[in-house]
C-alpha cells in the first residue's frame, strides 16, 4: 500500500505502508522513522522557515513547522522521540546558478533548515541525498525504514 504525499503535506503511517513524494526540485522530503515501533512520517516541504507572524495558509509547507508536525503526530501515534532517525532528500537547484538573485537558492536553504531543525530536536540524520541540480522522487518504506531516491533524468536510483 503506498500513499502519496503532495507538496506542502505531511503524512504518517506504519509498517508495511510506503510513503511517496514525486518530483522534488527545490522542495525537501524529510522522513522520520522509529525503527522499533516501525512507524514513520514523510513531509514534502516547500519553504525553509515559518515566519514568526502572519502565516498565510497551511503550516505544513514550512520545513521547520512540518518537521515538528511529523514528530508530534508520530509521538501521539506511539513513537518514541528518542528513537527517531531522519532521512532528507531534495533541496536541489533546478536552474542555473548564474542568476542567484532570480533563484535565491531556496533548495539549499530548505536543506539547511531541515538539518538545523532536526539537530535542535536531537534527531540524527542517517541518510541524505540533497543538493545538485536534479529532480528526485522518493519512496519511504515503513517496513524497513529505507528510502529509495529516483532521479528520472539521470535514470539513477540510490537507497539511503
Amino acid at each position, binding site marked *: 500500500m503506498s500513499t502519496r504525499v503532495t507538496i506542502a503535506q505531511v503524512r504518517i503511517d506504519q509498517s508495511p505502508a510506503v510513503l511517496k513524494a514525486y518530483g522534488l526540485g527545490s522542495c525537501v522530503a524529510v522522513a522520520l522513522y522509529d525503527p522499533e515501533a516501525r512507524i514513520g512520517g514523510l513531509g514534502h516541504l516547500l519553504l525553509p522557515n515559518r515566519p514568526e507572524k502572519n502565516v498565510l495558509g497551511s503550516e505544513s*509547507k514550512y520545513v521547520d513547522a512540518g518537521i515538528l508536525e511529523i514528530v508530534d503526530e508520530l509521538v501521539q501515534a506511539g513513537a518514541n522521540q528518542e528513537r527517531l532517525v531522519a532521512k532528507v532528500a531534495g533541496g536541489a537547484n533546478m536552474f542555473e546558478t548564474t542568476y542567484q538573485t*532570480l533563484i535565491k537558492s531556496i533548495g539549499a536553504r530548505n536543506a539547511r533548515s531541515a538539518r538545523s531543525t532536526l539537530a535542535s530536536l536531537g534527531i540524527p540524520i542517517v541518510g541524505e541525498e540533497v543538493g545538485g541540480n536534479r529532480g528526485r522522487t522518493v519512496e519511504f518504506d515503513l517496513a524497513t525504514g529505507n528510502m529509495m531516491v529516483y532521479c528520472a533524468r539521470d535514470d539513477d536510483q540510490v537507497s539511503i
Partner: protein
Amino acid sequence: MPFREMNSVQLDTLKEVSNIGMGHAATALSQMIGQRVNLTVPNVTIIEISQVPEHLGGAEKMMVGITLQILGDARGSIMLLFPQESAHRLLCSLLGHQEKALIMTEVSVSALKEVGNILASAYLSALGNLLNKTLIPSVPLLAYDMAGAVVDHVLIDLSQSGDFAMMVETDFAGEPDQDLAIKGHFFLLPDPATLNIFLSDAGGSI
C-alpha cells in the same frame, strides 16, 4: 486580492487579456518554426499549490521548463513547459536536428531558452501595451527534469502568500497531425499583489 475571491467577470478579463498576449506569442512562434500554430482559449484556474504538478500532467513526467520572472510594473512568473517529445520536435525544426530523441546540448538549451524569451517577450509586450504598463521579462532559465521538480520553485514564491496558485494556461500546438505536433503549455503566475494591477488596468473592477 486573494485568488479565491475573484469573480467571473475578473476571470474573464484575465482570459481575454491573456488571449491577446498569447496571440502575439503564437505568431512569433509560428514565424520561427515555419508552421501554423493553433491556440486554445486560455483557461484561468485557481487551484491548490499542491495540485499544480498533477495539473501539468503528473509530477514525474519529463518536461523542459523555461521560466522567466516578470519585472517592471508588475511581478510574477511565466513558465513555459514542453513535454520532451515536443521539445525534441521543436529543436528539429529550429536547428535541423536529426537525433531520434531529445539530447540537451549547450546549443539546444540555448535555442529553447531563446524560444522562451521570444514567446514571453511577445506576450508581455502585448499585455503591457494593453494595460499601459512596462512589463519586462528577466533572462530565461531552463530545466529539463520531472514536471514537479521543474515547477516547484515557481510555487515557492506563491506559497509565501497562501495555499493557492492562479494559472492562466494556454496550450499551443503546431501541425494538426498529432504525432508531429509541437505542444506546449504557457503559464502566467501573477503574484497576488500584482493581480490588482492587471485587473484594474484591464477595466475590470476590483
